[in-house]
């Protein structure tokens, strides 16, 4: 991605997310599978931009890579809990934390990513893939609702969407190592 492209995306996405937030939160599918990833993605774009302007951030990322990684992993995993999805609708403090912590998770993930060893990155990719499959499967077949604010149909639809994400992501990973000319390290 070129910097211009990143800038354009960022400038476009921020208002889109803010304006659409109410609408995205009306369904479990768009709340969890669209809004939350977008928040992380915006943070990631932002960090990419910052890095090109301030090389010192690269040094920072190198030095604190483990803490940054842990922060983003804990934050992202917490936001997979159905409980927080509900809470973000009824408790303004939690809603505020959502808008703060997820972009930050995107930022810290990008800052540390390039300093992580190949094997660790591989494990993270696979774990993300496995998590999509696990959650997708659970949502698809759970007889009861995990969120009080959304119906069971919505939950099953989310399950389908997460499995779809997993399929696309899995194909992407497979093709990049099977065909890709990219070299490790």
């Amino acid at each position, binding site marked *: 991605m070129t910097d211009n492209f990143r800038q354009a995306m960022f400038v476009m996405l921020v208002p889109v997310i803010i304006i659409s937030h109410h609408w995205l939160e009306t369904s479990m599918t768009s709340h969890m599978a669209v809004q939350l990833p977008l928040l992380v993605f915006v943070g990631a774009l932002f960090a990419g931009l910052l890095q090109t302007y301030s090389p010192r951030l690269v040094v920072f990322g190198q030095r*604190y890579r*483990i*803490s940054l990684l*842990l*922060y983003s*992993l*804990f934050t992202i*995993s*917490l936001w997979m*809990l*159905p*409980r*927080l999805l*509900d*809470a973000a609708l*009824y408790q303004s403090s939690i809603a505020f934390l959502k808008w703060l912590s997820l972009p930050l998770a995107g930022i810290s993930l990008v800052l540390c990513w390039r300093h992580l060893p190949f094997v660790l990155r591989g494990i993270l990719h696979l774990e993300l893939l496995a998590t999509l499959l696990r959650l997708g499967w659970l949502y698809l077949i759970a007889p009861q*609702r*995990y*969120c*009080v*604010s*959304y*119906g*069971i*149909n919505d939950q099953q639809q989310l399950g389908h969407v997460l499995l779809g994400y997993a399929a696309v992501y899995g194909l992407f990973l497979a093709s990049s190592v099977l065909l890709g000319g990219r070299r490790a390290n």
Partner: protein
Amino acid sequence: MTVVAVSLGLLAWWQTTQGFRAFTWESYRRLKIASHPLAVPNVLLQDQFGHLLDLNSLRGKVLVINFIYTRCPTICGYTGLNLSRLQRMLLQRSFQDRVRLLSISLDPHFDTPQKLKAYMLRFSNQLKTSWQAVRPVKPLQGQEMQHQLGVVSIPDGIGGFTHNAATHLVDQKGYLVRIIDEDNLKLTIDIIARMLLAAKTGINHDG
């Protein structure tokens, strides 16, 4: 540094999940209430005969509260059945004067006293008992109460609601002390018995 980060992360998880026990809103709400009883706000209600009553006027009795709406094609019928069975169990133990069962409507516009009466008649042929079906007179007040208790009802797209069904137990001082599964009648009656005993022996329940 890493250790600090890991501990902070685990702490955040611990906090949000009440010690890795609650992953959903419903289980969180139940655990939270069990450790932090909540004063139930006063609501003006109208019962199946059309009589008005303040929720606060029931202080001194143990309240068993369920949320229903009479058009409900599924769960609420089961709720009513459970309440009528619970009523019988209370009679067996002669608890009936010290306990009040309340089915509070989630759909106060539609659920007029006639509708509430019809709902109750589906489960029992007696209406003048310790069980009352009620609707909030001011819908906003009702919503505020649901919000504070953590009860959420959402339109199900076919004219009804989807809501978290549970039995809410309120003690004699007006505090919500436990939320449990509706069909767990044995646990319900056990907790009621304990609350009544505590009142008799003067043990302070929420202290």
